[in-house]
Structure formats: structure tokens, C-alpha cells
């Protein structure tokens, strides 16, 4: 294999073992197990993240979370190295393959640090404490009398030092301390956390040396391009491959297995062209003649579906959260605002289209892919091959490489399973590559959604009566076709978890039939919920004649922690976070809103045709406010600047938080221009020309303000997205007086 061989666990152990005197640690979710060099540390079945130290003191840390550009392969090792007191210059990072021994590897929900911060620190602390113990034993002094100081252990009595490398083999023979006996650093002792350390693999990236799933090359492999049914649930009726087979380099044409709904993360059937080169496979695919049986989803048209959503969201719904009684109230039309907003289907559009390689060595299946969910992928491969997920798990070696963007798309392993299906069918190594058209037309889309609000303003420019509804096809349908409404989890994402202090409130949803695969898209349901709420609060402010900031502050009310289960929202989930320090906190909300306004000058006077818009959203235990300035004339919109303020608790790698916020502003603004539409069940877009993403000339000046916080880390990858689009739409209103409620903006306006 090529340069990515070093990512393989066996090679990793071999490599670190070569130097001799090596310390290797592996951790399970609950138990810690240490191993001396003589033992194969993977064999206990309990081993997770590896930290190794060779006799030269080189520290190698396996990044167990998937890297898609968010920087986790720097941030997680940074936390471990900090607890270890390792010198960052002497830390190397490798990517871990998918395996339960690494603990939770499902990389989504902005969860890596938000949910596993303490666990990650414990990994580092175990390694440090074992090195300290080895040094204490050497000097025959107590553990309390030694201290780790920058890649060495210091004898506090004599000042003598022993390097990590010198201690590695002795430390490896010690018993692993239990979690209760670990001493974690206090915040003032952090040496790397909160600092902008050198980022991992940046130089390899700028040299073009990093490996993505598209780059995998296995000797003798075939490259497969697949023609998939244009409609979800469709199948091949018949096909003629004679022309395809005439293309030089085409080796075989195979009908993929039919796959009944639910779609799950399974392949979607079709016809695969297998060839010696990508070019032959792509050309062969074009020559296929296929007759499809489209199935019942061929009746799906997004334009009429949108109207169905609007009709439903304007009618009484199924209550998700209720306080007081809003329904028997007669709204005063003078002080009431009522509005319906829609956001179309969206697609992730990662720069790297899906790709995966699979082959067999004896009865072992070896997979090379880039996925956000390696363990789910490993289990799905087991199912695909009829293997027992527990007993036979090690018959599936699930190797991870970098992802060229993901944004939720690569949380689903359909492309990986396609490679496995074809490797099994052909008995040869197979790399499946997706064209951009494949990617756009066979995605797991962000739900089209309609949000409705009706609220009455009181004399204090606040509201006592508030009705809101949301209707959208649920992600749940992808996995279970009986799912006909948003789940509690979906409704906990910026909808029924609305943090306002309103006496009479009803949050409702409605049932709906789903026709395409719906998936997680960066910030998920928060995208349309925060868009709609952000615009509606602005509309209320306009009605009240007060600044939008003041409207937000009024609605949020007093400084308090909110437990929504006690405020009428049964089944509320605070992003899986039960730590009380992650409580929904209105003071933090108000702080980011005030900060973004003050820092941006969003309430200052502007020139004619210019306007500011602001919006706020909390998601994944973080708080973000956005302010956007635009200039509008004759339906031409120039976005001048976007500001965000984020409170994401303790910050590990400030520069990567900033980078995520920059990316979120760019992607969030991009939502104003993009839509996936569907005619007769088939996606109408195909590439960057008709599903545009933001380019240079539309990228305004971006400003990020990361607010200091004494709270534990919140999410970072997603929370930046939700408030951006409403801030843009509100800015257009304040610049031009035109209120847009139905996205994309480009239906009526052009960005310049």
C-alpha cells in the first residue's frame, strides 16, 4: 500500500516498537488497560485510543475522532498532550481506524470535545501519572514528590529530570491507575489548552501529500461508477451494457442488489461499470442504457410539496410543547405578527465526492474510506457480509483517511457499502467513485421546511401569546418509513426549545409523507428553525418599533437557567448533555447578542440603501449571534460584512474555533443562494452551476469574536451556521424594506 500504510494499527505498533523501550496505552470507554511492549496491546479487547512513547521520547497519539476539516486531529491530541505535559513539537498524530475499542467515534453533533472532554483528559492523565510513577520508583520517592514538566518528570526534591523517552519502558510495566486515582490538571495548569498550537498535517496538505478516500490505490483494483435510480425506492427494470462494454478499459458491468425501503444508509441499487481506470468507468457509465422502475416517489414534486408544507403549517397541529393557553386567546390584529417561512432542501456538497475502497484478504474484508461514523460503518459491513457484528467484527478492518469535507453527508456509509458489495461480487479490490452529479442527485438532503409563527406584542414590547409550528420531512423516515413527523430530538433543535419567557405558548408540528432520503446537515434542524425564528423576531421588532436586539432581550427575559422539561416540553433533549453547567442560560444568550451588536456597530447609522440584520441561535450547548451588513439597490444585494460572536465555553484551539466560524458564515450565507428542487421524484440539480456554493467575489469581510467563558466546552463545528442566514435576510429588509420569507434569496435578488 501507499503512504497511508502508517495509519494502519499493526504498522503503527510495529513502527513504534522498532525503537525499543516503548510505552503504549490503550483505553476502553470505561476501563483503562495498559500494556507492556511484549504484549500486543490490542488483544485485550478493551483498548481504545493509543498513546505511545518511544525511547527517544517521541509521542504518538491516535486521533480516534474523524477528521473532516474541523481540526479534531489537532484538538483531541492537544488535550491529551496537555494532560501529559508533552512537548507539542514532539507529538505525532495518526488516524485511528474504526473499532469499538476506541470508545465513541461517531463524529457528528459537534460532540467530540463537548461530550468527551473529561474522558480525553483522563487519557492524557493516565499516561502522565504512569510516567510520574516510573520516575518516582526510579528515585525511590513518593509520587507526590515528582511532577511532569514539559516532556520530562522532575524530582521536586533534587530538581533532577528524567525524560519521557528514558521512562517509557519502565512506565509500560506499571499498573494503569484507576480513574478515581487520577489527578487531572486544574484550569490554571493548562499548558496547551486554549493556545494556538501548530496544527497537524497542514504541511502535508499544502504539499498535496495527504490521502483522501478518492486517492486510495490498491494493486489490481477496479474502479466502479454506478448509475443509480433517479428516484428513491426505484430499481433497475432492465439494462443493456453492450455499448458500455465496448469502452476500452471496462472490465465488467454488474447489476447492484435491489434494496427495499427504508433507505437506511444502504446503497440504492443501480448498475455498476467496473474498469481499470476512472475515465473508462465514467465513460462506460454514460453508455449504459437502463430502464428504471421508478416507484411511488416519482410523484414527488418539491414545488407542490412546499405548498403542502405551507398549508399544513398554517393549520392546527400536534402539540410538542405547551404552556398556558394560547388557543382560546383572541389575538389583537393591531399588535400581532403572523408569518410563514420556508427553506428548501439543501445538499452538503463536500469538495470531495464520496469514495471508498474494499477488498478481501482471505475471509477478512479490508475497507478504506472516509466516514464520520466508522463503527457504524464497520457494523454495516458486517451485516452486508452476513457476519456476526460482535463475534466477527475483526473480520472487517475499517481504515479511515481524511475526509475532503463532510458536513453530515459522510455520516452515512452507503458509498462504503457499495464498494463492499462490488468487492464481494467481483472478488477483486474495488474503489467506488462518485461523480459530482452522483453526489448532488443521490444525497441525504437537509429537510425542506416550513415554519409558522403568530405572536402578539404586549405594552412592554414583549409577548404573552405565542403560537409556532414547524413541518418538515423527518430524518427518521430514512431509517423507518412509518416515521411521519419530526422526533423529539428534531424538535429540540431550535424549535420547541425556544428559550423565551412567554406565558401562553404552543409549539406544534404535523405529519407528512417523505419522498427522499433526509439526512443530517451541518446544524441539522437548527438551520431552518433559527432562520425562521431569527426573521420573525426581527419582524416583531419592526412592528414594535424597537431595535431587534432589544426585542431579543425582552423575549429572553431575566437571567436564568432553563429546564424545558419543566416548561411544557416533555422529552426535551439538551443535545444529550446532562451536565448542569451546560444548562440553557439566558445570560449567555444575551451576552453574545450584545457583544455582536456592540462590536459590529449594527445599531449605528448607515448610508442609504444599507442595512444591518442580526440574529441569534443556541445549538449544541454553544451560543452564537450574527450581524450582517448589506447594500441593496434594484434587487442587487452586496453583502458587506458579517460578524459573529460565540460563547462555546472553554476553548481548546482558538484558531480552529475561528476557522469554523468563518466557514459557518460562508456556508450560512451560501444558503441564501442554493436550493435542491425535485421534479417527478428526481433531483433537478447536478453540479456547481445549478447548486451554487459561495465563491470569492461573494465573500464579505468576516469578523469573529470568541467570548471568554468559564463554562465547559460546547460545540463548535455546527453552532456558527444557524444565525447567519436570518441575519442576512433581516439586513436585506433593513436596507430595502423588502421582507423575504421564502428562500433562497436568489429567487428575487441577485448577489453582487
Amino acid at each position, binding site marked *: 500500500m501507499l503512504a497511508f500504510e502508517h495509519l494502519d494499527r499493526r504498522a503503527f505498533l510495529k513502527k513504534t516498537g522498532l525503537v525499543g523501550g516503548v510505552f503504549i496505552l490503550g483505553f476502553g470507554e470505561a476501563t483503562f488497560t495498559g500494556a507492556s511492549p511484549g504484549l500486543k496491546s490490542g488483544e485485550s479487547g478493551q483498548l481504545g485510543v493509543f498513546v505511545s512513547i518511544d525511547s527517544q521520547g517521541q509521542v504518538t497519539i491516535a486521533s480516534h475522532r474523524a477528521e473532516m476539516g474541523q481540526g479534531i486531529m489537532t484538538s483531541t491530541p492537544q488535550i491529551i498532550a496537555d494532560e501529559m505535559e508533552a512537548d507539542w513539537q514532539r507529538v505525532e498524530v495518526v488516524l485511528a481506524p474504526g473499532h469499538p475499542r476506541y470508545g465513541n467515534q461517531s463524529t457528528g453533533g459537534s460532540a467530540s470535545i463537548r461530550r468527551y472532554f473529561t474522558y480525553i483528559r483522563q487519557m492524557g492523565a493516565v499516561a502522565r501519572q504512569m510516567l510520574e510513577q516510573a520516575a518516582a520508583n526510579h528515585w525511590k520517592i513518593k509520587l507526590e514528590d515528582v511532577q511532569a514538566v514539559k516532556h520530562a518528570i522532575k524530582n521536586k526534591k533534587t530538581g533532577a529530570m528524567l525524560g519521557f523517552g528514558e521512562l517509557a519502558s519502565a512506565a509500560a510495566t506499571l499498573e494503569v491507575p484507576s480513574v478515581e486515582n487520577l489527578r487531572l490538571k486544574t484550569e490554571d495548569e493548562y499548558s496547551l489548552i486554549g493556545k494556538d498550537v501548530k496544527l497537524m498535517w497542514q504541511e502535508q496538505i499544502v504539499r*498535496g501529500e495527504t490521502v483522501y478516500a*478518492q486517492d486510495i490505490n490498491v494493486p489490481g483494483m477496479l474502479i466502479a461508477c454506478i448509475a443509480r435510480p433517479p428516484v428513491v425506492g426505484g430499481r433497475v427494470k432492465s439494462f443493456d451494457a453492450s455499448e458500455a462494454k465496448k469502452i476500452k478499459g471496462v472490465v465488467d458491468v454488474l447489476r447492484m442488489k435491489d434494496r427495499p425501503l427504508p433507505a437506511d444508509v444502504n446503497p440504492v441499487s443501480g448498475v455498476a461499470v467496473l474498469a481499470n481506470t476512472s475515465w473508462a468507468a465514467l465513460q462506460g457509465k454514460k453508455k449504459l442504457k437502463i430502464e428504471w422502475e421508478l416507484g411511488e416517489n416519482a410523484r414527488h414534486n418539491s414545488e407542490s410539496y412546499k405548498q403542502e408544507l405551507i398549508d399544513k403549517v398554517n393549520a392546527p397541529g400536534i402539540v410538542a410543547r405547551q404552556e398556558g393557553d394560547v388557543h382560546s386567546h383572541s389575538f389583537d390584529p393591531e399588535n400581532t405578527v403572523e408569518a410563514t417561512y420556508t427553506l428548501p432542501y439543501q445538499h452538503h456538497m463536500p469538495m470531495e465526492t464520496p469514495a471508498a475502497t474494499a477488498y478481501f484478504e482471505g475471509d477478512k474484508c479490508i475497507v478504506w474510506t472516509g466516514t464520520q461514523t466508522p463503527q457504524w460503518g464497520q457494523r454495516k459491513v458486517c451485516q452486508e457480509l452476513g457476519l456476526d457484528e460482535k463475534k466477527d467484527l475483526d473480520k472487517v478492518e475499517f481504515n479511515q483517511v481524511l475526509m475532503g469535507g463532510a458536513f453530515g453527508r459522510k455520516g452515512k456509509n452507503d458509498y462504503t457499502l457499495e464498494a463492499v458489495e462490488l468487492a464481494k461480487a467481483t472478488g477483486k479490490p474495488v474503489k467506488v467513485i462518485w461523480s459530482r452529479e452522483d453526489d448532488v442527485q443521490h444525497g441525504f438532503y437537509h429537510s425542506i421546511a416550513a415554519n409558522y409563527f403568530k405572536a402578539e406584542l404586549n405594552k412592554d414590547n414583549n409577548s404573552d401569546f405565542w403560537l409556532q409550528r414547524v413541518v418538515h420531512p423527518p430524518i427518521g423516515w430514512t431509517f423507518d418509513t412509518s416515521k411521519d413527523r419530526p422526533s423529539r430530538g428534531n424538535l429540540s433543535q431550535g424549535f420547541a426549545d425556544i428559550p423565551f419567557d412567554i406565558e401562553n405558548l404552543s409549539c406544534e408540528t404535523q405529519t407528512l409523507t417523505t419522498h427522499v432520503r433526509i439526512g443530517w446537515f451541518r446544524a441539522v434542524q437548527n438551520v431552518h428553525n433559527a432562520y425562521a425564528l431569527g426573521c420573525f423576531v426581527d419582524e416583531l421588532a419592526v412592528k414594535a418599533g424597537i431595535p431587534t436586539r432589544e426585542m431579543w432581550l425582552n423575549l429572553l427575559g431575566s437571567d436564568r437557567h432553563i429546564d424545558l422539561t419543566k416548561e411544557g416540553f416533555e422529552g426535551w433533549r439538551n443535545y444529550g448533555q446532562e451536565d448542569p453547567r451546560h444548562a440553557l442560560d439566558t445570560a449567555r444568550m444575551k451576552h453574545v447578542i450584545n457583544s455582536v451588536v456592540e462590536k459590529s456597530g449594527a445599531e449605528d447609522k448607515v448610508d442609504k440603501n444599507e442595512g444591518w440584520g442580526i440574529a441569534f441561535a443556541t445549538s449544541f450547548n454553544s451560543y452564537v449571534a450574527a450581524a450582517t451588513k448589506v447594500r441593496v439597490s434594484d434587487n442587487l444585494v452586496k453583502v458587506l460584512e458579517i460578524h459573529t460572536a460565540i460563547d462555546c465555553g472553554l476553548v481548546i484551539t482558538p484558531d480552529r474555533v475561528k*476557522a469554523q466560524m468563518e466557514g459557518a458564515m460562508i456556508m450560512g450565507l451560501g444558503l441564501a443562494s442554493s436550493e435542491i428542487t425535485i421534479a417527478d421524484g428526481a433531483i433537478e440539480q447536478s453540479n456547481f452551476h445549478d447548486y451554487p456554493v459561495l465563491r470569492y467575489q461573494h465573500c464579505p469581510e468576516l469578523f469573529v469574536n470568541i467570548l471568554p467563558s468559564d463554562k465547559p466546552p460546547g460545540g463548535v463545528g455546527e453552532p456558527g451556521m444557524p444565525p447567519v442566514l436570518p441575519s442576512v435576510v433581516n439586513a436585506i429588509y433593513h436596507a430595502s424594506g423588502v421582507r423575504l420569507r421564502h428562500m433562497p434569496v436568489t429567487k428575487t435578488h441577485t448577489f453582487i
Partner: protein
Amino acid sequence: MLRITVNGKLVELDVDPEMPLLYALRENLGLTGTKFGCGVGLCGACTVHLDGEPVRSCATPVSAALGSSVTTIEGLAKGEALHPLQEAWLDNKVPQCGYCQSGQIMSAVALLEENAQPSDEQIEDWMQGNICRCGTYPRIKKAIKQVATSKKG
């Protein structure tokens, strides 16, 4: 046999002359730093230099490169020494997922070779064919300006 020079080395290719250069580089020559993004010249991930000019290798047939000299991202650094733009990319911590960056860097190199002191607008104009979904545009612009400014000094 089709002859082209890639990163200073003459290579012979036994491929369909109509095949895009991208696949010859990636699959015949193992130069996977040049990436596939769209297949139709819309995103710039596959940008390489053909006799010094930036081209989209996914939409350039091998036949168009016959007798010409191709430079890919792998040919930019001189051994250990990175190109000043690669250095500026590191200084500004540009990459997120990194996938589009080879193409971004190759476009930027061609820009500065044509115009050593581009204005903001000229940078935007020149680079608008290179898409980054992660959103690294502001940093790319900064990196380009950093090199342009240092040349001025």
C-alpha cells in the same frame, strides 16, 4: 506513446489521448495531490499549470498537453523548501479539510506569476473559479497578499 513533461520529468503515457489530464496524473503517474471535484471545470480542485498557465486538468485532454510541461502541486516545493505561497498558507493556517487547497495554491501561484501585486478585486476575480466549501477564502486572500507584499519589500 504520448509524451509530456510533468514536474520537470519527461513521461510517456499509453492512454486515450482524449482522457482528461487529471486521470493521467492521478492514476498513471500516482500524483494524487491534484483532486477531482466536479469533472467539468467548475470548481478548480484539479488546477495544474500547463506551460505555466493554470488549467483545469479535469477538462483538459491529455492530447492538449503533448510536448508541454505540466506542473502539479507535488512539483511546487523544491525538496524541503516550500514555495513562498505554501509557506504563506501555513502562516495563515489556511486549510480546513484541505481537499481543494492544491488547486487553490496552483491558481494563486499562477496569479502572482502574472501579477505580482494584485489588488483585492484582482485576487477575487482570478480566484473565483476555485471553490472552497469549508470557507477558507479570507485566509487564502490574506496568504496571497502576504506574499505579494513581501515581494514589494
